[in-house]
């Protein structure tokens, strides 16, 4: 885990062939949009922001093309984005370049092309190896396609593969989750993001839940699933380095660590968010509006929030505590000239006394048993 990674560059592809029932991300079916116009708008925003006074001085070290489903674009189109980014921003090498894709849209030929363009990390939205569950999530791939996608990626030479997995799915049994984890370990990806299903507002799942028709596993079972993942993945040699993220040593995702360290990042594309120079800026959500704004010569921004020192300090603490290693007290002092022990006073001491926080190796962190109830602690520190 590199200490202060450089800034991150995020490029959002807001299109998915079909929208999953749990998804609250900014994504749309491509049919209703001019996807090539959107690609042009992305190019334009890349060029425009690379010369933006707030951005110019930043040194970047990661690129992440996420979505949505970036692989709705051809490898050549994605490679084009990567090379424009590399040519127009300052980077410190080696650059971690991730592309997200869904199992149904991963083809060997395009993977070669991506590799050649410098993409060195592939993130595959597997979610589960149980076909019924995939169908009920509204995913358009099945378990066999997922397994093929991993094999294909390996053949194409990807040596850093992430799989996204989900548990706590409607109707999911502990046994099925164990099978998914075991299948995962057989393929030995370098990185795993293991999420509990969150029912987000304004999703089909939220509607079902409101009607009492979403049959989620009992909370105790979900807690068991979380514990099971930790056990199985630890046995298979994965190190948990964030609440939901596991990696083989040296394969932690630098792009995401930068988020958890509340570092600087630039988000390109519809709905993407930037955090630069203590301002958090969000781009226009709707891809068509976004295109229009960019083509009219605007930045494409729709909102901004200034982060005062203390707010940003608290935010940095709560984000940093998501990581197992926690957050270094020295870096907090350096960045904010604040010490959480003094800043939070009695609250902090109480959390320490109740073993809900610990200070170890100069880092402030959540003890292992507090990870599962992290919000209880973070809500005291926010």
């Amino acid at each position: 885990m590199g200490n202060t990674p450089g800034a991150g560059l995020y490029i959002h592809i807001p299109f998915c062939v079909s929208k999953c029932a749990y998804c609250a991300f900014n994504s749309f079916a491509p049919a209703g949009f001019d996807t090539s116009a959107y690609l042009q708008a992305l190019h334009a925003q890349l060029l425009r922001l690379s010369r933006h006074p707030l951005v110019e001085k930043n040194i970047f070290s990661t690129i992440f093309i996420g979505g949505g489903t970036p692989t709705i674009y051809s490898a050549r189109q994605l490679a084009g984005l990567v090379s424009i980014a590399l040519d127009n921003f300052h980077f410190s090498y080696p650059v971690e370049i991730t592309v997200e894709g869904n199992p149904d849209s991963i083809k060997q030929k395009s993977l070669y092309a991506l590799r050649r363009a410098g993409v060195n990390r592939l993130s595959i939205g597997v979610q589960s190896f149980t076909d019924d569950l995939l169908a009920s999530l509204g995913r358009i791939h099945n378990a066999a396609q997922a397994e093929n996608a991993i094999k294909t990626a390996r053949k194409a030479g990807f040596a850093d593969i992430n799989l996204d997995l989900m548990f706590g799915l409607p109707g999911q049994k502990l046994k099925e989750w164990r099978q998914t984890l075991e299948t995962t370990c057989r393929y030995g990806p370098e990185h795993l993001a293991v999420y509990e299903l969150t029912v987000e507002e304004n999703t089909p799942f939220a509607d079902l839940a409101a009607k009492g028709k979403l049959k989620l596993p009992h909370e105790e079972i979900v807690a068991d699933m979380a514990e099971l993942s930790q056990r199985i993945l630890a046995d298979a040699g994965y190190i948990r380095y964030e609440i939901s993220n596991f990696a083989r040593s040296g394969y932690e995702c630098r792009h995401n660590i930068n988020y958890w360290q509340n570092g600087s990042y630039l988000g390109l594309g519809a709905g993407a968010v930037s955090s630069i120079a203590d301002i958090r800026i969000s781009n226009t959500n709707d891809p068509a509006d976004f295109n229009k704004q960019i083509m009219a010569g605007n930045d494409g921004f729709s909102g901004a929030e200034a982060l005062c020192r203390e707010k940003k300090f608290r935010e940095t603490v709560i984000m940093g505590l998501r990581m197992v290693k926690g957050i270094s007290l020295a870096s907090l002092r350096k960045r904010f000239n604040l010490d959480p022990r003094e800043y939070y006073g009695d609250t902090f001491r109480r959390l320490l006394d109740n073993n809900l926080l610990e200070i170890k190796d100069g880092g402030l962190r959540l003890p292992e048993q507090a990870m599962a109830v992290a919000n209880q602690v973070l809500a005291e520190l926010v």
Partner: protein
Amino acid sequence: MKNIRNFSIIAHIDHGKSTLADRLIQTCGMVKDRQFKEQLLDNMDIERERGITIKSQTICLPYKAEDGKNYILNLVDTPGHVDFSYEVSRALNSCEGALLLIDASQGIEAQTLANLYLAMENDLEIIPVINKIDLPSADPETVALQIEEDLGLDSDLVQMCSAKTGEGVADILEAIVKILPPPEGDVNAPLQALIFDANYDPFRGTVISCRIINGRVKAGDRIIFMSNMAEYRVEEVGIFHLQRRPVKELQAGEVGYILAGIKTVSDTRPGDTITLKANPAAEQLPGFREIQQVVFSSIYPISTDEYENLATAMEKLKLNDAALTFQKDSSNALGFGFRCGFLGLLHLEVIQERLEREFDLPIILTVPSVCYHFYLQDGAMLEVDNPAHFPDPAGIDRTEEPFIKATILMPDRYMGTVMNLCMERRGENTNYHYPMPGRIELTCELPLAEVIYDFYDKLKSITQGYGSFDYELLDYRPSDLVKLDILVNGERVDALSQLVHRSNARARGLHACERLKEEIPRQMFKIAIQGAIGGTIISRTTISALRKDVTAKCYGGDISRKRKLLEKQKAGKKRMKTVGNVDIPQKAFLAVLKSEQT
């Protein structure tokens, strides 16, 4: 005086009293249509939201009648809830007539009767008004028949209207002028002014609403309150338009206000008589009585360092609410607070909401109690309204608790279930009769303690909303009380203690434990909740430990949103009281007495 009419509108809750008042105001041209907002007279948020009137308001309506003469119609609004029946009676006392408002689809309800009786006791002329005739379910002919046959009122007087659409409202104004008598009184007699309400104006002090029965009063006069002989100098007199409007003098027959720089609202008691120091009246107007608090509960700030703010807020509320009493109290679990007396539970909830809304003070109310009488073996009698002062059981000779007479009006099909409810609540001497075909009026003598919390809610639910309820205090009767304590993780929480009848103790203990289990959120450790009498545990529940509370995904685009969620969670925590190491939410303290549905 011939051109004045003083009247009230009396009605069962929800029969449209405030809407009709608004419509009368509008029809008399007091407000432009575009200034019109619903329920002009209900100006507290709580009143608008709950659709009830808590503080009565008065308004003076100028009206040009069909006979070509100009009239002054004083509408004295009244609170619409059983907790406030004394206030209602004082307001009625200042009128010569009343509009008895009845919902065209609901017909006559318990409060319709209770209010009608009150009005009759005060010798008021009654105009029955059938409201909501625009509703599809309206059955005005049947209701008119009920009025004639069951209430014994003259059906020729009945007015039909829809306060909502305005239909029939003009006729009501004419009826007020034609049917209601003008006030009587002797302008030259010594001043007798009846106080029926008081409000507080931060700049001018107490605003006394009063009806001048005899005599006259003007700025500069020295006045005396006859109940306590407090003396003040009148600064201003006036009448109520939408704002106060000063006048030179108020005379017999008129309704208006008096400002006299009064800072202690407790000096102005509804029902009291104001007279002039120079030429005092021989006697007080009849009907005055001290306000009687029947429900007691302690108020604590959630954060102990808010005590001073709470004290200030209580003083301010008291200025506007003569019925609220309080004194300092303290609790091991909750620190310093106030023991308060209320007219009833609605009054208690109103105070709670006002403290939170108007003063932004998160507070905890302890389990409400009535006032018990303990006769000790040494002959002394202790009045106890706070479980903390429960005497040593060994020293108690006998105990008494207050009883009420409840009047419940309902369709006869609910009689069985309602009688069961009364029996469950230790009801005695249940009687019933049929004031009208298909409807039963049930009277029952019940311990007040059994009624204060959820009786009304229960009644509403088992009668599907058709049952209505009114009560009056009767007397004290022998009882057998024990103190039920609640232990949270082994620690007794004094604020959750309650005095209960021995026969109910086990059931109440179990109920309290179960309700607390529902209200206390899971925490990071297991929580045991126990009910105990003395050293004996009589009930127990366990809240299992929280195993997960974590946000799965949080990346760059999510930070702001997730942070806001955590901030919300933090605000929720602030509304909880930490007892020992357990966070107990505010509403848990009241929930102990409530039934599940509410």
